[in-house]
């Protein structure tokens, strides 16, 4: 397990040295972008819970029927359901996994973990954060002071409790997590991948630096001139990014800070359907919303104009004061 997770430094460096890090246009279609995700890969997912989830990419990866993905995200909600339920992933590394506190336990997660023996690998929230951060810093581990004493730690032989060589204090060393590919949704970026993130940034910056490939979806593509006018607003530098796709409402039905809040009517009907029957309910949901639509816009149309507009009104209201 550990060996599969922690890459030696020379391999990490070799991977990066092979990437084309020049300032080049990298706008592609959603289909092309999702094809960076190949069977068996470690996939890091940006955002958290129901916020700035790269849902359009997850949607397309599921449509491309990938297999055996090992996915990591700080907090997983319906995206985790869909990754397990569609069969693309059998391993999810996170700190919390349910559809959202409004709906209690995820019957989908329970089904796949309790009876299908899929792997929900639990770390503390900070543990996930320090693993991405170590990955982004190019070090094999970071020390932290949580998880110690808990059964969460006991289940994680990948982490090492040690005595501090300076102070003798007990510390936990958590190993770097360098996903093969990261999927991240942002409010705006340029055609090179210089990305701005408004509001909550979660662990996306560390994740982008840690991953060996980064795929960005963005609500809009802006000019490089606009980026260069406020370089201190750039949160992810272009040379970390391998593909850019403009996908308005790319987090739907989740939220995107300042643009739209979660589409809770859709979420509620989703939860009712899949929790009532985690197998058939999920299959029917995927059929209707994931496999049948010809495009992301057709999927949005199924969520419905009214819900999109209402979510947008609520989303924008954060700037009304």
């Amino acid at each position, binding site marked *: 397990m550990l060996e599969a997770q922690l890459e030696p430094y020379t391999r990490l460096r070799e991977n990066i040295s092979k990437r084309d890090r020049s300032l080049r246009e990298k706008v592609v279609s959603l289909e092309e972008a999702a094809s960076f995700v190949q069977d068996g890969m470690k996939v890091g997912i940006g955002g958290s819970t129901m916020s700035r989830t790269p849902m359009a990419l997850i949607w397309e990866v599921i449509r491309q029927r990938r297999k055996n993905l090992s996915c990591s995200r700080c907090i997983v909600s319906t995206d985790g359901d869909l990754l397990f339920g569609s069969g693309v992933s059998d391993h999810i590394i996170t*700190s919390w996994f349910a559809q959202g506190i409004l709906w209690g336990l995820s019957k989908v997660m329970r089904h796949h973990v309790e009876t299908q023996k899929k792997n929900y690998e639990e770390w*503390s929230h*900070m543990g996930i954060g320090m693993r991405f951060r170590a990955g982004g810093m190019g070090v094999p581990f970071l020390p932290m002071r949580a998880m110690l*004493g808990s059964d*969460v730690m006991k289940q994680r032989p990948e982490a090492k409790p040690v005595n501090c060589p300076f102070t003798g204090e007990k510390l936990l060393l958590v190993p770097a997590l360098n996903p093969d590919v990261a999927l991240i949704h942002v409010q705006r970026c340029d055609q090179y991948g210089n990305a701005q993130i408004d509001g909550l940034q*979660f662990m996306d910056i560390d994740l982008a630096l840690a991953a060996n490939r980064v795929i960005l979806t963005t609500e809009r593509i802006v000019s490089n001139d606009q980026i260069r006018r406020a370089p201190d607003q750039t949160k992810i530098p272009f040379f970390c990014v391998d593909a850019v796709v403009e996908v308005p409402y790319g987090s739907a039905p989740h939220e995107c800070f300042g643009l739209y809040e979660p589409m809770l009517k859709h979420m509620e009907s989703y939860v009712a359907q899949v929790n009532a029957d985690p197998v058939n309910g999920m299959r029917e949901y995927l059929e209707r919303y994931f496999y049948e639509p010809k495009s992301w816009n057709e999927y949005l149309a199924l969520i419905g104009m009214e819900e999109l507009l209402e979510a947008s009104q609520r989303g924008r209201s954060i700037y009304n*004061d």
Partner: protein
Amino acid sequence: MTEAQRYTATEILAILSARQLRDGQVVFAGVGIPLLAATLAQRLRCPGLTILFEGGVIGAFVEPGKLPPSTNDQRCTKRANMVLGSADVLLLLQRGYVDVGFMGGAQIDQYGNLNSSFIGDPAAPKTRLPGTGGGNDISSLTNMIVAMKHEKRRFVEHVDFITSPGFIRGDESRGESGLPMGGMFRVITELAVFGFSERSRRMKVLALNPGVSREEVQDNTGFSLDFDETTAMTEPPTDSELQTLRLLDPERLFTA
């Protein structure tokens, strides 16, 4: 109208939890009752209470009727003083800037250990629960207030799995495990307010909720509780507390 009819179990939970906070404190709050109770305290008595959320928020003032469905939603940032990365907001706990962590709980034991990971054997669980989220980090690094429903299956002698550590096995075991700071401070339920004894670190009843008997608390608890002459009786929720609470959550998202 009898006392018990004036408010729901969740309402008294939120109100008594809010009473535990002090103006000027820095509190790290989870979603649901903690978020609601911290916001209630802020509106009632503690305008200088600083609320942190796991999504990466410092010093928010959540709006009435707009409670966020998670602590990672944009509503959590309303009128915040700062929005930052979520690893970074957790590191503030580790560095020591936070006075109180404030969470809900699914299962707790006599030493204040919380389980939100597994019911039954973790190797073949009866129920896989959602997991720790920031709970393990918060409870490892600061003083904790936990608000939860009081049921015998939730108040057990030993939790099936220590997701978020309290005093582990009591006495000095928390410190010896590498957690020299923090620990359980208060547990609030719809029946009583609990603390932890200074030496053994076992849970003890500090005060009974209005109209609740010692027997009722003991009957709903899976381990023996000590009562003594210092066990107090909590003042009932005031009209102002109830009104403000209902204003904050008019759709009864968290106070159903």
